[in-house]
């Protein structure tokens, strides 16, 4: 039986593996695989934790107070809690440098999506136009992934942008502010649809509203950001656990994959790996190799393999990420109301806007403020901190943020390559990104529309608080080894099969030839399952 070796246990890797396992393949998965600590007091809600833990400050702020955001801190703020730091713990072998790009890397079991926000948005036929396969090829796998991970949502005005797939669970209970916004949308629907080309509806999220397979239904405990303690919120480590139940699956954690070795016929023979923490190299053989280490890490392994094979240092061009803008708002109708800590914490509403002149789809997620560390917000109010705190308390229930996403395209200016240390010969990943020249006009126009929408919904956008996130911050990386109909070097077939090495496949975002303005992970998982099913 063919032995398939997969690098990476992220969203792409686990769904690729599960499909192969179901087909009876022998699968080996190599992973750095940092492990999640057990959830504390799993039955407690967010506020129960503050009341019941003997040292809640240690839990929420960390042993070394790493979650405290001091005034003047630089760098993009993600709000990752201390108990999720393991997700970003990078092995010492892995080095990188970036210009114009602020990347995140994960070497955890389950990868970056162990800390994702669960937004599940299938790409539609229009958005797959630049992909070398037909949209209909993916729909079956949308259903399959939906069945595997559990997606809640509903069919509403946004269905015009989000294809409807099977196994859609009932939507989550809406938090107070989200439901007020949705009601306001219903009242102004006509105007918003026709004048502003804007549609509002329920988000689709990978969160269970009913119990199944050892995972509980969402209990609205408000701990999503700190790691769902009941498994209601999907992360790839849940699918990894499912893989463990197959006897044809072998998982090797604490392994850092370096590069492939080829034989005389240009086929890959083995992968050279190191145990993390040790400098000893080893080789592991297989018949077929699959890179699912995340676009950037898979690219590095590819670059290193070519570099080892012929000493060359090439560029993989076409790196993409969604530009995001954060637009905070205050819903004046909710001033003086009390917020509900017992709610689902991430976004429950989404917004689709069709660009007036571009005709393109822009994607926005509306997150109302519920449980969170709030000192980063309070300190941003330009008042003394006591007044800021009082005002914050009064408006808290009405605060929220729109995260507006823009599409991206493969361009020559955006690439990854290697830099070699002259003394040690070790390589580091170099990332270069330049936004498109005409970007700002589109951004401005779309932001203006969003502001108009918010005003119509009864909200104000406080001045000077909008934030243009750096490229890299949306963590939707793609495009460095694109699928192509033409078998050119540094591309893959429509099934992710490398045009450089016949027994190498790419199962992650590296192969996406375009990046629509939508969170890509659902399409990523479906595509990984598609390749595994159709090609194996």
């Amino acid at each position, binding site marked *: 039986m063919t032995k398939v070796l997969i690098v990476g246990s992220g969203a792409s890797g686990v769904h690729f593996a599960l499909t192969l396992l179901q087909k009876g393949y022998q699968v080996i998965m190599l992973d750095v695989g940092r492990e999640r600590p057990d959830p504390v007091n799993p039955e407690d809600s967010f*506020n129960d934790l*503050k*009341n019941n833990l003997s040292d*809640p*400050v240690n*839990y*929420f*702020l960390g042993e*070394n*107070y790493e*979650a*405290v*955001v*001091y*005034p*003047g801190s630089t760098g993009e703020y993600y709000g990752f809690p201390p108990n999720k730091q393991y997700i970003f713990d990078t092995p010492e072998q892995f080095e990188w440098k970036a210009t114009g790009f602020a990347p995140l890397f994960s070497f955890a079991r389950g990868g970056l999506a162990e800390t994702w926000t669960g937004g599940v948005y299938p790409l539609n036929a229009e958005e797959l136009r630049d992909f070398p396969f037909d949209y209909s090829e993916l729909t079956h796998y949308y259903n399959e992934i939906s069945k595997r991970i559990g997606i809640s949502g509903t069919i509403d005005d946004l269905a015009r942008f989000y294809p409807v797939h099977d196994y859609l669970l009932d939507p989550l209970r809406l938090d107070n502010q989200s439901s007020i916004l949705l009601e306001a949308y219903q009242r102004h629907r006509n105007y918003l649809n026709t004048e502003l080309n804007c549609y509002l509806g329920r988000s689709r999220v990978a969160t269970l509203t009913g119990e199944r397979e050892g995972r509980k239904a969402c209990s609205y405990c408000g701990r999503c950001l700190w790691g769902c303690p009941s498994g209601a919120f999907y992360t790839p480590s849940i699918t990894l656990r499912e893989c463990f139940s197959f006897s044809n699956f072998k998982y090797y954690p604490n392994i850092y994959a370096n590069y492939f070795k080829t034989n005389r016929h240009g086929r890959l023979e083995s992968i050279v790996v190191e145990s993390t923490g040790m400098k000893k190299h080893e080789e592991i053989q297989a018949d077929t190799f699959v890179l699912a280490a995340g676009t950037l890490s898979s690219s590095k392994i590819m670059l290193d393999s070519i570099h080892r094979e012929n000493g060359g240092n090439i560029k993989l061009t076409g790196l993409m990420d969604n530009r995001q803008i954060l637009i905070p708002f205050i819903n004046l109708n909710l*001033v*003086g*109301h*009390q*917020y509900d*800590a017992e709610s689902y914490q991430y976004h429950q509403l989404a917004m689709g806007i069709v660009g007036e002149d571009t005709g393109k789809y822009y994607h926005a997620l509306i997150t109302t403020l519920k449980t969170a*560390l*709030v*000192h980063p917000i*309070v*300190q941003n109010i*330009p*008042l*003394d*901190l*006591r*007044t*800021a*705190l*009082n*005002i*914050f*308390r*009064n408006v*808290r*229930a009405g605060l929220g943020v729109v995260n507006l996403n823009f599409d991206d395209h493969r361009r020559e200016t955006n690439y990854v390559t290697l830099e070699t240390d002259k003394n040690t010969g070790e390589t580091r990943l170099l990332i270069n990104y330049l936004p498109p020249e005409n970007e700002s006009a589109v951004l401005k126009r779309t932001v203006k529309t969003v502001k108009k929408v918010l005003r119509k919904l009864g909200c104000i956008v406080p001045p000077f608080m909008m934030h243009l996130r750096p490229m890299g911050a949306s963590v939707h990386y793609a495009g460095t080894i694109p699928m192509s109909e033409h078998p050119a070097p540094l591309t893959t077939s429509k099934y992710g099969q490398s045009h450089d090495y016949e027994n190498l496949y790419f199962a992650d975002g590296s192969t996406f030839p375009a990046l629509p303005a939508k969170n890509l992970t659902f399409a990523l998982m479906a595509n990984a399952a598609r390749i595994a099913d159709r090609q194996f």
Partner: protein
Amino acid sequence: MAGHSLFITGATGFIGRRLLQNLDHERYHKIYCLIRKENDAARLPPLPSNCQLVIGDLNRPLTYATSLAECQTVIHMAAATGKATQADYFQINATGTKALVEQCEQHGVRNFLYLSTIAVTYPDISLYFYAKSKAMGEVQVKESRLNYLILRPTIVLGHGGQIWNTFYKLARLPFLIIPGTGQVQIQPIHIDDLVEHLRALLISDVFSNQIIELGGNEKMSFETFLRLIYERVHGRSPLSVNIPLRPVLAVLSLIDRYFPDRLPFNSGQLSAFRFDSTADPDLSLSSSHKMRPLNQTINDLIDWEKEDESRRILSKECDAFTYYLIRQGPSDFIRQKYIKAHEVNLNLHSTNLGIVDRLQMATSIRSSLAVKIADSYSAIFSRSCLIRKKIVLLLAILESSSSTYKHFDLPQGGGRAFLFGRMMLQGIIFAALFIFSSMIFFPLTLIDRLSKERK
């Protein structure tokens, strides 16, 4: 050996507490500790299970007598020390010791360790009632049928000790004030060295009616000693002033007589500056324990004081900032967390600060209005200054703590219109304070910048 029990007096004292921490508990069947009040137990270190508290008083022997029946050895450290009335010195140190000795004899105690003091050897103790009463205590012990050891420590140094506190206060003054000529010889001993010797004596279990004088490993003049502390505190040599003792003593003894409670010390205590406090080599103990060098003792103690002082300041800051933010004081947990954050984040320490930061920090710990004024200025002009960093840290701690997180969750009371009005008013007050604070801090910031540029 286990099976034999111990009776300790003075366990809540400076030396007693440290001894209790370092005692070889497992050697004893039971350890009885005489304390005066039930809630004094809170001052004791964590106790092993074979420790039993006896609530009583030296002067009321019936309160403790029955416990003595089980004990073979008594360590008698209880005493009126420091500043006390003449009556108390004699009542506790002489009469109290006499009563204890009698009870020991009656209840079959065999060994008696008496913690006396080197002061009993001073050539003139007629006005030094503490020394006189301790000397009387010694007599009681010597004349008893008990096997005794009398230990006369010299000056005992350790944090929290009264003597060290006095020296440290003296050394922190801008000038060095030296009572007397400063030429008397002293030989201070670190409390841990003393306790180590006590432990060794208890282990050897030899009570051979001996008097032992115990001092540190260095003798020096009082003046040299005070200078050492001063230099370590200030980082420079002191200008010193000697205060002649005789006239001072004369005045003090008059004040003592007619207004006994008016002064923080009494004339007797000043005797320590008149006579040598060194251990007689013939009465010293040959021991394998090495005494720590005096320099090291001083360094350790000053380091501790500085840390303690910075903890005290942080604790005050935490009180002032918490009150400023939520109109209630912090719990101990919040204080601890605030202090700990300063241990892990060195950026929160006030080194190299400009005038404005220093002024803001110094005034803030005094009043909540000062915090508000400083914060109003920083909110616009100096958003990442020290005081704002500290208040933001506290916000993070308060929002994560059980007793305070609700202050972030619940709106201030009142209807919507009232709330809008209230917020407007808060905004106006902020604007007024901002203008006021700018008038103070803005010129100071400019001066600071200019002077830095000039440098």
